[in-house]
């Protein structure tokens, strides 16, 4: 029946073509047999007209857009702007189901009436809500796992470019870190801590069933529901991809009734949230002369760079404020329009959105065009069909910042607050000024030149398509066959022309990277759901196959003949190097789940998944992931039933195993690297070197996370007060990590399963409606406490270190660590104790120091006791990059048409290593606080004293602070980065319905909002919420050249008509 040759690609093509064939052919053929009787039924039955009005039970105002359906049929209608509806029914014995978002759905028996009016009660917490879970849905009341739901309305309260920014502070167990403030900038999402060192900690994101989505490419307006699966009971069904939690997003479909058009536009004005203080030019020049005057050691002659005339000139004419030169007022505009609707058999939603963000750093911007088309059709009574298609085009541009773009010493964000204010931007001929040597940040490059002359173009294109057929042959049984894929490519070009530092050195440097990513997913899910007396059982079983490939090319050209052409004409470069790459990965899975409920009180969920992954070593191709959970709805017991206080009370316990397969393809194979280049043969032209790059590991496998969770859900006073509290503990074993190899092997490490990490935490969410009625107040407070601990790093390894910063900051040795018994983000170095005081002169001299110079703790020595030296033995823990807890506080107040919402969030107990201060407060100082230097009369300061160099030499001190080239590795630069922030505050007005009716609109909302208006923190850098090295969770906590965040004021308007 099938070809017998063994080609993978044939097999795959065949499978997909059969699948598509089935999807097209089956429904059509079946449709033919089904449609005859149905059509006549529909024509003859709709006879009696029922009409009525739907109002709000509190305010008595009519509600527009309420959905009324005759139960068990597809007959339905929506209310108009006056809350009125009418529909035709075959007889007057049925039941109408009246539903509206945010209100409790009511079933009204027609009971012979033709006029029916209903007042709907606003739902505070709807227990009957359906929650999306892995490969299915469950009633919220039946849920046994830990799942957070974020309401789409909450997501749209602040103007954001990505959805995850909107989740921040709104739910528990999710740590969101805005790693930088750039347009289109990324966010780090961690669900319940950090499980992995090298396997990645990003959650699995699934949009409409398609796995591995990118939140930056999703239009926030398209979201219908968003759930965050946290415990193993919820995520184990995703097996080897579930350990970091799962975010499930469903996009919108139209509702029965006439087509609805939703449109919105907003515009935001942004400014640098906080500027770093810098000296003016005269003050800088004076300070520099003052500083130089002490340089007399070894018989040196002090060299003064500024004359009195220079200083007088600066007094009169001022200098350059480099931050003003590179930052500007940014503008963010957002426009979106969606058309949605539904007929008896077809639901649809088509939307498009445009985002244009001009960032606060000159020459930075982000643009995004997105398009989505969702379709769902009932082909027959027992087959329906659906399509989700989305297209996103992003265009990203920014001058280089943070570590991913090369040497931090040549980046405008880092250089601007360091450049001497005495230096002009341009010389008299209009060329970019070069910093005069000898003082200031002369070893870096003109920040304006770097910002304006680095030409970056980075568009990405992504198509997601997802088709499904859903068969429901008998009651309770359904088979959903889904086939889809993601097809994306990205082009990145960067040209550093001869006015940039690298371009100047090499006569133009151009880079072009082109990459393609294709992912195909086939998911087949069989679901059986039925109730037998008190037993409610749901069985879910599935087979899934995911295949992805990526490939690309990258080029670098140097020495361009025509500077203006740059990367658009790589032929014009004298020397071009090219690389290309390709990799594939495959995942084949079988899964099953049983949900069982007895008397709606005792609930049990068991799930199991088997994953076969191509990236695992050949001895370990399959991994197995079971989970189980139970829940007890105590409120359903007789002693609580009907209680006026307790509306709902549920206790949940779960345990399960999930995995992480974040291994790069071919990671288990031996490898020779081809990237070595050395002019071995003729000394002039590079020869390609093939060198040893990896030794094989056939036993390589997934990381295993065992998680237990105990939680309670409470709802009191008919939902006026609700709370969810969870405790969890996760232990991740078999960490994917480079297992260290002895140096004589020639390869530093081999990727292996070593080490173990624990995360445990408490999540508390309390929400309520203190005020209902005409004036309403909805509020919620959440707090997440995660304790992360490294349990094991492999035999003989106590700690692993990183030195994320490159040259120029006296940080040559590791200072960020993973250490057994300690959490992620650990900083180690010498402990700064302030400056030596005058009365400590003798002790200071015993270390070769003087009063007024920094004092560091002498904690230990070779014998384990203080030895009079501060050296390697005295390094200690000096900071923690992750917070002890994070919290959020949301408020929504409404009165008539007005809405005021505010989100306050915070992070407590995290430190930042403020590297910039190392340069701004020492020998090339630009920070005005350096004038507050230590003197015997002014000892209460952190700025060291100045001593004549020759005099110090004559003291014949023997320095016992042995810091080598790592003198920056001290707690002097580590600061508490805890913060509390008014993230957003929005005032909105919904125009009165009556007014709108006259112009044909059903809803109009205008709003004014402020983002990042107020931040309380002791941190002295640009912002306490940043990460310079987001690529490695262990190095979170370092501030270095990060695009700063901005304050934003936004005005927006939304229409529905």
């Amino acid at each position, binding site marked *: 029946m099938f070809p017998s040759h063994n080609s993978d690609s044939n*097999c795959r093509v065949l499978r997909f073509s059969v699948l598509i064939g089935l999807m097209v052919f089956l429904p059509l053929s079946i449709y033919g*047999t089904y449609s005859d009787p149905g059509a006549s039924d529909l024509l003859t039955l709709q006879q009696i007209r029922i009409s009525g009005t739907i109002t709000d039970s509190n305010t008595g105002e009519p509600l527009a857009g309420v959905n009324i359906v005759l139960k068990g049929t597809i007959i339905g209608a929506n209310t108009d702007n006056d809350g009125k509806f009418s529909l035709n029914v075959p007889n007057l014995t049925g039941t109408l189901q009246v539903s509206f978002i945010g209100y409790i759905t009511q079933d009204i028996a027609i009971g012979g009436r033709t006029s029916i009016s209903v007042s709907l009660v606003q739902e505070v917490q709807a227990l009957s809500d359906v929650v999306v879970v892995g490969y299915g849905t469950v009633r919220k009341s039946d849920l046994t796992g830990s799942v957070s739901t974020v309401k789409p309305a909450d997501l749209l309260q602040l103007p954001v470019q990505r959805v995850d920014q909107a989740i921040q502070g709104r739910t528990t167990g999710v740590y969101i870190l805005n790693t930088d403030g750039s347009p289109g900038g990324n966010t780090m999402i961690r669900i319940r801590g950090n499980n992995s060192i090298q396997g990645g900690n990003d959650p699995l994101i699934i949009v409409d069933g398609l796995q591995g989505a990118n939140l930056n490419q999703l239009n926030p307006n398209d979201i219908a529901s968003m759930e965050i699966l946290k415990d193993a009971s919820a995520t184990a069904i995703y097996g080897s991809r579930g350990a970091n939690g799962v975010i499930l997003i469903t996009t919108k479909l139209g509702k029965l009734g006439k087509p609805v058009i939703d449109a919105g536009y907003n515009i935001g004005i942004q400014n640098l949230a906080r500027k770093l203080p810098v000296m003016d030019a005269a003050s800088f020049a004076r300070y520099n002369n003052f500083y130089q005057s002490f340089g007399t050691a070894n018989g040196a002659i002090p060299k003064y760079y500024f004359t009195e005339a220079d200083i007088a000139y600066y007094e009169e004419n001022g200098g350059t404020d480099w931050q003003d030169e590179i930052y500007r007022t940014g503008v963010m505009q957002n426009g979106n329009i969606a058309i949605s609707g539904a007929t008896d058999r077809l639901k649809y939603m088509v939307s498009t959105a445009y985002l244009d963000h001009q960032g606060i750093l000159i020459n930075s911007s982000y643009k995004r065009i997105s398009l989505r088309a969702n379709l769902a059709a009932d082909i027959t009574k027992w087959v329906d069909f659906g399509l989700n298609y989305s297209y996103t085009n992003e265009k990203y541009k920014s001058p280089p910042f943070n570590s991913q773009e090369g040497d931090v010493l040549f980046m405008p964000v880092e250089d601007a607050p360091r450049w001497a204010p005495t230096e002009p931007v341009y010389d008299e001929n209009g060329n970019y000024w070069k910093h005069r040597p000898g003082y200031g940040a002369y070893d870096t490059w003109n920040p304006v030149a770097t910002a304006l002359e680095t030409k970056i173009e980075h568009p990405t294109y992504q198509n997601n398509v997802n088709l499904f057929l859903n068969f429901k042959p008998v009651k309770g049984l359904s088979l959903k066959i889904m086939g889809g894929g993601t097809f994306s490519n990205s082009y990145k070009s960067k040209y550093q022309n001869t006015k940039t530092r690298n371009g100047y*050195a*090499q006569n133009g440097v151009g880079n072009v990277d082109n990459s393609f990513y294709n992912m195909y997913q086939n998911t087949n899910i069989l679901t059986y759901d039925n109730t037998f007396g008190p037993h409610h059982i749901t069985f879910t079983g599935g087979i899934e196959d995911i295949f992805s490939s990526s490939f690309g090319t990258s080029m670098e050209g140097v020495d361009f003949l025509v500077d203006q052409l740059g990367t658009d004409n790589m032929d014009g470069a004298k020397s071009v190097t090219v690389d290309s790459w390709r990799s594939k990965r495959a995942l084949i899975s079988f899964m099953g789940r049983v949900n069982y409920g007895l008397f709606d009180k005792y609930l049990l969920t068991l799930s199991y998944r088997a994953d076969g992954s191509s990236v695992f070593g050949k001895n370990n191709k399959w991994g197995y992931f079971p989970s189980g959970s139970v829940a007890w709805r105590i409120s359903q017991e007789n002693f609580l039933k009907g209680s006026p206080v307790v509306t709902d009370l549920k206790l949940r316990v779960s345990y399960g195993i999930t995995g992480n397969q974040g291994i790069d393809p071919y990671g288990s194979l031996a490898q020779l690297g081809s990237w070595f280049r*050395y002019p071995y043969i003729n000394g002039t032209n590079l020869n390609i070197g093939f060198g040893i790059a990896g030794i094989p590991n056939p036993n390589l496998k997934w990381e295993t996370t065992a998680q237990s969770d105990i939680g309670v859900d409470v709802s009191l006073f008919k939902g006026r007060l609700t709370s969810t509290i969870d405790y969890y503990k996760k232990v991740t074993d078999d960490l994917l990590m480079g297992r260290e190899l002895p140096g004589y092997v020639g*390869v530093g490490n081999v990727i292996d399963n070593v080490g173990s990490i624990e995360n445990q935490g408490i999540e508390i969410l309390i929400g309520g409606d203190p005020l209902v009625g005409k004036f309403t107040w909805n509020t919620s407070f959440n707090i997440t406490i995660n304790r992360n601990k490294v349990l094991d790093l492999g035999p003989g390894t106590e700690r692993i270190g990183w030195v994320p910063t490159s040259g120029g900051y006296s940080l040559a040795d590791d200072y960020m660590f993973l250490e057994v018994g300690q959490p992620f983000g650990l900083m180690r170095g010498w402990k700064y104790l302030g400056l030596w005081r005058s009365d400590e002169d003798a002790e200071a001299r015993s270390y070769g120091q003087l009063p007024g110079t920094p004092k560091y703790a002498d904690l230990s020595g070779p014998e384990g006791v203080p030895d009079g030296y501060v050296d390697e033995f005295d390094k200690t823990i000096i900071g923690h990059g992750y917070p002890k807890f994070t919290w959020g506080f949301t408020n929504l107040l409404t009165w008539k048409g007005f809405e005021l919402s505010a989100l306050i969030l915070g992070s407590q107990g995290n430190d930042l290593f403020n590297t910039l201060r190392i340069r701004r407060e020492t020998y090339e100082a630009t920070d005005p606080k350096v004038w507050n230097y230590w003197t015997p009369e002014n000892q209460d300061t952190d700025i060291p004293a100045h001593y004549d160099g020759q005099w110090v030499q004559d003291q014949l001190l023997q320095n016992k602070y042995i810091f080598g080239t790592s003198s920056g590795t001290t707690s002097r630069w580590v600061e508490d980065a805890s913060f509390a922030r008014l993230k957003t505050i929005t005032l909105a007005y919904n125009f009165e319905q009556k007014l709108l009716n006259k112009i044909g609109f059903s809803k109009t909302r205008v709003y004014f909002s402020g983002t990042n208006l107020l931040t309380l923190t002791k941190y002295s850098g640009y912002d306490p919420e940043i990460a310079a090295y987001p690529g490695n969770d262990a190095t979170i906590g370092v501030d270095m050249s990060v695009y700063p965040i901005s304050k934003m004021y936004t005005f927006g308007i939304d229409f529905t008509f």
Partner: protein
Amino acid sequence: MKKRIFKTYSLVILSGVLLLFTSRCAKQLEENPTDFVGPDNFYSTPSQIESAFAASMDVLFGGWTFYDWYRYPEIFDMEDHVFGGDLVINDGFGNDCWSKHYEAIADINPAIKALIDNQVTGASDQEKDELMAQARFLRAWNYFMLVRYYGDIPLITETTDVTKDEIIRNPISEVYDLIVNDLLFATQKLPAVWPAEGKARPAADAAKTLLAKVYITMATAPTNDVTNYAMARDMAKQVIDAGNYSLVPNVEDVFKLDKEFGPEFMWSFHNSQEEYVIEPQIWLPGDMAGGWGDIKTEKRWGEAYPEEPRKHAYLLLEDNIFGTGTTYLNWDESTPYVKKFVAESKENLEKNVSYQSFPIIRYADALLLFAEAENMASGGPTQAACDAVNQIVNRATGGVANPNDPLFTTSMTKTQFDDAIIQQRSLELCFEYDRWFDIQRKRILDKVTDPNFLPNFSVNDYLMPIPQKDLRLNLKLTQNPGYTDPTP
């Protein structure tokens, strides 16, 4: 009824088909990479063998990797020449040096094995011998560096299974056996001269000079086997007599860019014209092209350097390139900087670009090795020894008699001559990865180091610590005296 049957039927088919497909495609889980090779399907042509050599050099000199940034072979910081040589040598000192040289050896060993196993096709026996000779030269040079840095070290050859845990530190004598055997093979099989298109490869004289240095090192501390002096002398004499190399006449020109392939440079780390790996700012003071001054001389040594043309050629005493008019007294630490490696054009220096080569073996060294060995083997200075070293002295002084840098004579005692040779090496070969090894083999660290740092001196400083990582991961390894062993 018909409908129901059809539904059931289609469902069964569908499920069956899907199951069948999924099981058939389990072989998808096998990985067949297409964008890289493994060691099993490589090393079969001469250029693949040479690509292993290129990789082995790149790991040592490839863009801020190791030897290209002077600071990294940290032990050279402890020379009396280099500013800041405070003799504080902690347990982490020189760890990169260990792993990088072993990485180079790991690149070379499979090439040697492939040549032994006769895997290489399309080459004559002579070409194969030349490939093998290069491989063994490179391996010997890497081991020679390692054995001097660390003493006893694990010998990893083409037959060693590095994943086994029976690897121990082989005694120095075994390491030298390997080095000498490899180099003897290289001296015999390497061509006297490579054709111009392959001129950067090591030739026979490079191997001979290196072997002379190996012998002289074996004749001195710590092995002190003085019978090696004669062998060192003979080897160096072969190089001098062959006449393939000579001194550059003018001391100003020795490090000029057009001299990087001879007549004096014999084998070097090369910067490619296609890619520069060193930013010359490491050698320059802030006043000159915004220099960083990573490496500068120890003031005591720099100021004591005899006043002669060589001092101005090798040391940077004033800005005579950029015209800022500053002298070393204006620069950081008010000490002389290093000029040998800033022969680039002013324009390139301003651009932070340098294509300078760094000699590893230079003809001047062959002359000095000969003179030293001849004196020691003959029981005192001979005319031949004096003639050899005086070529260097005359060039340094420009032929002008200099009481601070006098010519060598046969009237000197053996010891005087030997001391003067070591001093002459110090002046001539400064900053060329050499002085430290002279200090080490002559055991003079306490005599030459800055007296301020003398309290930090210990005889244990002559060897660097075995990296903590290797000691932790292989309990059979032992630590050098004076350093911490993290394992019981």
